[in-house]
């Protein structure tokens, strides 16, 4: 009897103790391409970034317990949707992050709002996520097609590249990027002389390059990504594009693509990113930690992976402020209310349409002789301030923005 009483007292004490510290538990899912063409852009590198974010957050907030799961959407919207449903319904996941591939991201965004959870997009590009398809549970963190088109397009027209020819990947992403860039070029006084739509995963670009050369356009805009961009640039170097006075504009180029091309081939290419690992000391220090966590000394993090760290950090701060992660809409509202501040993206805000805004950088790929150490890829040519980098709030047709 005495023993039972003692146990009961102990239990009560323990229960009381937990309640006093107000333990909050949230479960986070990194949904990415783990095994295919975008797995170097997000993938295991995004999981490593998420782990770093959780570790840093735990130091300051021991009362919030964060669990992490990760999964592979295989670039298929149906696989991604199924996984998202299972995570939300069965595994009690509170938020999903990353998700390169705009098709998958648009599907997951829809599911997230029906189930009132949180979706922070770092990897996907389509600006529709904060445009007509926006919702109160989705935040688009790192970059989008409008920002790429305007950053690169405007800068090139202003420096004399006023006639364009497009090589466009023939699917939704390519069309969106081409549409946004054409608008930016024409708005700034340039003109578009022609375009050719090539199928996704085209191996040989020489035929298209001949057409681009025949057009005599000063700039050949690449509205494609990954392997297609790399193959086009390789063929351009071979067919003497620059000898004819023409230049490439890479509309979506990641550090991993530059690495695959080699500086000798990629030099002189102009591109826009929102984060570059070698930009400042804070980024370099974080990159070292990321390389250790990822167990890959020779790899360099992309802006997508940095965006996962930054986005997750801000989400966790908002959950800590609310002391709960249960209501997705409330968390996103809190995320929009709190100013963002972290070591990688600095200070910023999230707009009503879910667009996170921060500065973007106009970069130019260095020549091999100018590169001082591994991963020393870019000259920073210009910084585009946060309020100019992204599409104006009123132009997005997002139903959340009134008036």
């Amino acid at each position: 009897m005495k023993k039972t009483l003692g146990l009961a007292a102990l239990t009560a004490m323990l229960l009381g103790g937990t309640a006093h510290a107000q333990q909050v538990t949230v479960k986070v899912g990194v949904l990415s391409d783990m095994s295919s063409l975008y797995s170097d852009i997000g993938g295991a590198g995004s999981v490593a970034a998420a782990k770093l974010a959780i570790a840093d957050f735990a130091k300051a907030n021991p009362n919030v317990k964060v669990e992490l799961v990760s999964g592979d959407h295989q670039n298929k919207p149906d696989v991604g949707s199924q996984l998202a449903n299972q995570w939300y319904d069965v595994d009690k996941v509170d938020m999903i992050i990353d998700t390169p591939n705009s098709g998958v991201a648009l599907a997951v965004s829809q599911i997230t709002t029906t189930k009132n959870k949180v979706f922070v997009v770092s990897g996907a590009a389509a600006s529709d996520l904060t445009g007509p398809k926006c919702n109160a549970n989705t935040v688009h963190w790192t970059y989008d097609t409008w920002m790429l088109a305007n950053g690169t397009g405007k800068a090139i027209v202003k420096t004399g590249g006023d006639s364009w020819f497009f090589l466009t990947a023939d699917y939704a992403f390519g069309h969106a990027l081409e549409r946004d860039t054409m608008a930016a070029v024409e708005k700034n006084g340039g003109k578009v002389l022609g375009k050719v739509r090539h199928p996704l995963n085209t191996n040989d670009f020489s035929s298209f390059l001949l057409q681009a050369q025949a057009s005599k356009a000063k700039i050949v805009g690449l509205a494609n990504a990954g392997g297609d961009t790399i193959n086009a640039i390789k063929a351009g170097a071979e067919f003497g594009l620059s000898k004819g006075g023409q230049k490439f504009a890479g509309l979506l180029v990641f550090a991993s693509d530059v690495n695959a091309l080699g500086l000798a081939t990629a030099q002189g290419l102009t591109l826009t990113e929102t984060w570059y690992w070698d930009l400042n000391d804070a980024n370099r220090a974080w990159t070292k930690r990321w390389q250790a966590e990822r167990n890959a000394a020779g790899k360099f993090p992309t802006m997508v992976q940095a965006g996962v760290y930054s986005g997750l950090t801000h989400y966790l701060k908002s959950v800590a402020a609310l002391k709960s992660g249960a209501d997705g809409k409330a968390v996103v509202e809190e995320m929009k209310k709190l100013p963002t501040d972290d070591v990688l993206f600095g200070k910023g805000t999230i707009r009503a349409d879910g667009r996170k805004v921060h500065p973007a950088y106009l970069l130019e790929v260095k020549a091999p002789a100018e590169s001082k150490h591994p991963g020393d890829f870019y000259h920073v040519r210009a910084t585009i301030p946060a309020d100019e980098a992204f599409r104006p709030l009123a132009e997005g047709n997002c139903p959340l923005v009134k008036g």
Partner: protein
Amino acid sequence: MFEICLPVLLGGKCIPSGALFGQLLIGLINGSFYALLSLGLAVIFGMLNIINFSHGAQYMLGAFVAYLMLQYSGLGYWPALIIAPLVVGLTGVIIERVFLQWLYKLDHLYGLLLTFGLALIIEGVVRNKFGSAGLPYTMPDSLRGGQNLGFMFLPNYRAWVIVASLGVCIGTWFVIERTRLGAYLRAATENPTLVRAFGINVPVMITLTYGFGVALAAFAGVMAAPIYNVSPQMGSELIIVVFAVVVIGGMGSILGAIVTGFGLGVVEGLTKVFFPEASNTVIFVIMAIVLLVRPAGLFGRRA
């Protein structure tokens, strides 16, 4: 210079004749790769009755071995052109000895599934080790630059691709169709027991044939490394087209593989000018038509 137009029914697009010659030449260059790859497949199918689905992965391995040689031993393009096919061919020999030799008497499906599985494993392992973005491989200095042909700028490397591919294709065709060794090989596929009775070691010959087919894929991979992205998925993107080429040419027909390889390269090149959106599909449309009209393929002998 005059202009060449499509019939109005097909869009009526016009291009200058000079540009057309350029596109024809580029079609031939791409056809060189199709010919090299489908040649290997045709040799393997013709002699072993195996549908080698790991051909794309072996093509990719060729490019990766070339990259590793440059990275770790400083051996450049020319040594790689010899050594990489030998190394990858050797792995082919091992695959044949360990797995394939047990499958010859079974349905085609077993060989197809085995080689497809191997392709997935090889691709997965390479991706795990090197990532998906691809690796840089620079062109040898001796093949840099190009010639201005008046109607187009022809890079020296592309000219070399046509020459090397034609040389290898004609050489292989000659050995198999016109020499005593080739006669043994063809006889061994018809009736292995009888050929053995003449004192010829048939299993070794078959093993080496598979090794040779695989080495051809690796050779094409090294040829591709300086101009295409060297990534784990480079083979799987190409292999489906190459299979279509083999089917159009006639499964197992060496000459068929070579001629259709070059021919379809040209057809695809023209599609890229007149209707680029269809350039990935045109080969399969042709395949469907050929299968309807001549089920054994253009050069195939009816079994």
